[in-house]
């Protein structure tokens, strides 16, 4: 309230009726004062103007009338006119005039007042407003007029202003009486009016009090159309609005309580932070969920600065986002890190809005602890990275690539997965040494560094992962090309294992030890195992490939040999048995002819035919023996070997010594067949190439396996020399090898040029012994 009104209000009566009455009385009094002043001024002004106008006119008229008399010095006429004017005008107090060289003619019976000589000569040619004189008869206005321009003649009239004062006094008295009467009337009217006006207001006040005390259904029934009726209607409207608003507020509060309860139930933390004044930044309120999250009770956090429980790295983001919320530009959640009472960080997903709370602007801070979700996401990312790396390694390993290429690709995938630049892989060689199989990020010439000298070399011996610093002067990373700006101070090495054996080591280098936390090391170890398996698989794949290649060649040889064998049989049947049978058929025809013509030749012819038939049968038996000796089926492996040695070696002068069991059990047919065919091939080779004089054939039958060994004292050969043009061994030896492998056995050949040959084959018996 305005201070002037406030002070005025203190001095005014409290009742509205009294105030209205007082106001009307004051208004009437002021109106009376103003009216009195105004009327006085108007009357006085107008009467004065009228007096001046009439005085001027009367003086002018008198001057005009007396002008000629004054010129002619007709003093009697002048005196008569002056007396007539004074007698006929009540307001004219005196009159006097003088003409050319004449005395003053006046209306004063007792002599001319010497004071009036001061009014001569007149101040102007015309009367104008005259000169105001204060006389014992009151205020008198002297009007002087010189009717003859250029001649000293004047006429003066003195007109009293007493009439003005009398009229003003009458007006003042009249207005005063009116004012008093007006005050009385105003007081009566104001009292009645105020009672009439305040009655509905009193009623309205009573209803408002009832409304304020909670009677929201309170309404006022007053006819509309006037201000109070409109006020009552406005009250009813307001009451209805308040009732509706309170209902909505109750509903809203209930919903808000439910919301807070629900938020607290699901762990939604809510805090109110003061956003203005000296307490800006401090908690005004926190719910249970928020306090529990921070490790406090709600009351402990009220008054605490919110920045004190935020991670220092989150302060700038918090200020930035809260500023955006104040500006109304932020609606999306943002993440902050809270440090609880036990210095444990909690990642919060937060959002906020600005409200009025306890008369202050406050930031409502909604928080949700997403630490576990973030950890799961981190773990998931790690697993994804691991799976990606493993998948990449597996993908590289699944391709039919050489081991070095597989290692290069695997190393590249590992570095990509770990976001590193430098790494290398050592593998063991067949002679027990190590070699650098793949590398990335190593300086030129890095391949020559001495791996075992580094501390990571123990990985090959112990088979456990290790993290090595660059403090060791022999550390591998000294050969690595560091990626600026962080030097490679650490490298981690994990073993590459296959079938339980360490076949190599995978190393990656980094500038920080953080790169080799537990998860990364686990990933490296897993990748190492994967690479070891990939290496083994590559090796096996290579063996399979080579074996398949050999088998393919053997199959072709078998088919070729089969065709050759068929051609040979066909040729032998055609050239031998066929011819013999043709000759036999021809002889029979001859016998038949002889029976009809020369019967005496028949016995001779039949005898030749018998011999021819016997030779044919013998040839047929030889062919059958070549195909599969019946001795093997009938008498067993030892007899078959003996027969074949007899046929192929001893028949050609080679001395054969048998070291075989005399009474051994029969071996499974496929083992006997395999050992016979291997022995057959060996003896064929000896007969063809060895130039041996003595051959020893040894057969040892054990409980688990059977071993056949054939040794000659021939010219021998270098094993490398047995390889064909494509590097593969001779097909005969390959056939022997293949037969042994098919039965799970092993075949070994030892030979040196001039040292003869020792061939041994060992086949497992399994449950097949007879």
């Amino acid at each position, binding site marked *: 309230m305005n201070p002037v009104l406030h002070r005025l209000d203190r001095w005014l009566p409290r009742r509205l009726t009294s105030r209205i009455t007082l106001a009307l009385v004051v208004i009437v009094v002021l109106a009376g004062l103003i009216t009195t002043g105004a009327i006085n001024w108007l009357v006085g002004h107008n009467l004065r103007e009228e007096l001046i106008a009439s005085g001027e006119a009367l003086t002018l008229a008198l001057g005009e009338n007396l002008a000629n008399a004054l010129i002619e010095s007709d003093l009697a006429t002048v005196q008569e006119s002056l007396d007539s004017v004074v007698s006929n005008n009540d307001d004219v107090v005196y009159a006097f005039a003088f003409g050319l060289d004449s005395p*003053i003619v006046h209306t004063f019976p007792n002599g001319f007042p010497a004071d009036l000589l001061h009014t001569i000569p007149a101040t102007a040619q015309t009367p104008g407003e005259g000169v105001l004189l204060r006389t014992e008869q009151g205020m008198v206005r002297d009007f002087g007029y010189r009717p003859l321009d250029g001649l000293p003649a004047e006429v003066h009239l003195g007109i009293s202003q007493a009439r003005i004062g009398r009229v003003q006094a009458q007006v003042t008295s009249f207005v005063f009486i009116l004012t008093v009467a007006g005050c009385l009337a105003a007081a009566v009217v104001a009292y009645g009016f105020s009672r009439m006006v305040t009655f509905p207001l009193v009623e309205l006040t009573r209803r408002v009090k009832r409304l304020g005390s909670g009677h929201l259904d309170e309404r006022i029934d007053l006819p509309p159309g006037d201000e109070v009726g409109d006020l009552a209607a406005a009250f009813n409207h307001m009451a209805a609005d308040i009732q509706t608003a309170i209902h909505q507020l109750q509903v809203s509060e209930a919903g808000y309580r439910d919301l807070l309860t629900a938020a607290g139930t699901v762990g939604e933390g809510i805090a109110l932070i003061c956003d203005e004044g000296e307490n800006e930044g401090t908690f005004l309120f926190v719910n249970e969920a928020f306090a529990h999250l921070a490790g406090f009770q709600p009351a402990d956090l009220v008054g605490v600065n919110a920045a004190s429980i935020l991670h220092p790295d989150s302060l700038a983001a918090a200020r930035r986002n809260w500023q955006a919320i104040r500006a109304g530009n932020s609606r999306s959640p943002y993440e902050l890190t809270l440090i609880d009472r036990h210095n444990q960080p909690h990642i919060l997903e937060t959002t906020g809005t600005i409200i009025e709370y306890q008369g202050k602007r406050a930031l409502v801070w909604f928080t949700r602890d997403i630490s576990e979700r973030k950890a799961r996401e981190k773990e998931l990312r790690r697993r994804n990275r691991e799976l990606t790396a493993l998948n990449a390694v597996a993908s590289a390993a699944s391709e039919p690539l050489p081991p070095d290429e597989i290692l290069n690709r695997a190393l590249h995938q590992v570095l990509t997965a770990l976001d590193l630049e430098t790494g290398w892989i050592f593998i063991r060689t067949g002679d027990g040494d190590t070699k650098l199989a793949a590398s990335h990020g190593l300086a030129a010439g890095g391949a020559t560094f001495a791996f075992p000298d580094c501390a990571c070399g123990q990985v090959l011996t112990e088979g456990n992962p290790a993290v090595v610093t660059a403090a060791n002067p022999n550390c591998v990373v000294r050969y690595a090309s560091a990626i600026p700006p962080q030097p490679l101070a650490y490298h981690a090495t994990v073993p590459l294992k296959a079938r339980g054996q360490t076949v190599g080591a995978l190393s990656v280098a980094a500038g920080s030890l953080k790169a080799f936390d537990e998860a990364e090391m686990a990933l490296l170890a897993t990748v190492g195992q994967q690479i070891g398996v990939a290496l083994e698989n590559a090796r096996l794949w290579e063996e399979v490939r080579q074996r398949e290649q050999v088998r393919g060649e053997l199959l072709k040889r078998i088919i070729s040999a089969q065709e050759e064998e068929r051609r040979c049989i066909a040729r032998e049947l055609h050239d031998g048995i066929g011819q013999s049978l043709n000759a036999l058929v021809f002889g029979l025809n001859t016998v038949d002819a002889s029976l009809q013509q020369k019967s005496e030749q028949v016995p001779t012819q039949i005898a030749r035919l018998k011999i021819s038939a016997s030779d044919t049968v013998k040839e047929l038996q030889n062919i059958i023996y070549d195909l599969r000796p019946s001795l093997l089926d009938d008498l067993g492996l030892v007899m078959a070997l003996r027969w074949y040695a007899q046929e192929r070696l001893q028949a050609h002068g080679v001395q054969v010594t048998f070291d075989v069991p005399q009474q051994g059990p029969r071996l499974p047919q496929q083992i006997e067949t395999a050992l016979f065919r291997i022995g057959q091939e060996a003896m064929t080779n000896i007969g063809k190439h060895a130039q041996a004089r003595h051959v020893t054939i040894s057969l040892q039958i054990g409980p688990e396996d059977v071993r056949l060994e054939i040794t000659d004292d021939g010219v021998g050969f270098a094993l490398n020399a047995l390889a064909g043009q494509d590097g593969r061994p001779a097909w005969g030896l390959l056939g022997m090898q293949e037969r042994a492998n098919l039965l799970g056995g092993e075949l070994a050949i030892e030979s040196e040029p001039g040292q003869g040959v020792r061939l041994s084959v060992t086949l497992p018996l399994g449950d097949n012994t007879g």
Partner: protein
Amino acid sequence: MGLKCKLSLFFCIVLFLLLAACTGEQPASVSLSQNLLAGEVQPPLPAEPAAWQFGFDRRLEPKEDVRQIASLANWLQGQTGLPFKVYYSISSSSVVDDLCAGRIDFAAVGTVSYLQAHHLCNAHILVRGLNAQNEDVYRAAIIVPANSPLQTLTDLRGHTFAFGAPNSTQGHLIPRLMLQQAGLTLGDLLSHTFTNSHAATANAVTSGRYDAGALQDTLAEDLAARGLVRILAFSNPYPASGIVAGPDVPSKTAEMVQQALLTLDPAGADAGALYHWERTEMPQGFVPARDEDYEELRRIARDIGLLEP
């Protein structure tokens, strides 16, 4: 506007209205009942400075004549830088006497007065006036009542006749010449009288107190136009009234005044400075005048005894 301002403005208005009842005019204290002066009291007028006195022949009411001559005197003072003051010749004296006695230095006079002053003290005429028709002459007219049976001047024989002032040129001198030219003398008239002005002559005729009268032509035409009189005859034109200088006025001063008067433009630029100049006999200003122009009138004046001795 703030509440304080509103309240202040309200009280200022009230105070202004209350105070406005007083005019603020400071009255002078005068006692009307004390210090009374018995007997004749002369007005305490300041001494008049020396000035060229300007007289005039009375034509209309004294106050009107004074005002017209006073306005001309003021105009001359402005034009020449010389001080002028109007001089009223009392009835016991005459303008001619005042001129010749040196009480008047300049005067606006009719032809008779000029002829007398020239005759008595050699006053000389400076300029003569232009009438409403811008002519430097004027005429006299002899009027009869509108219903008079008289038709010619000779019909006046045996009838009463009213002249103007004896010294009036149009009211007496020229009409005497007209009667003489018609063969009539004062003895041929039944009776005659001299009024003090042309207005009195007109009243005498229109009222029927006299059968005929003589007055200035312009007034006669005005009365005839209104049907009050009938003009029996007009005179020949004669030199009009003029401004004369007394015998003691230095020639340079007279010449300065003459030159100034010749520039007077009563109907134009100088109309505001003059008081009803259109009512004078010289409403259009002045032209130079010579004494020779008045010879015929001087003869008749001498004949009828106006220049005696």
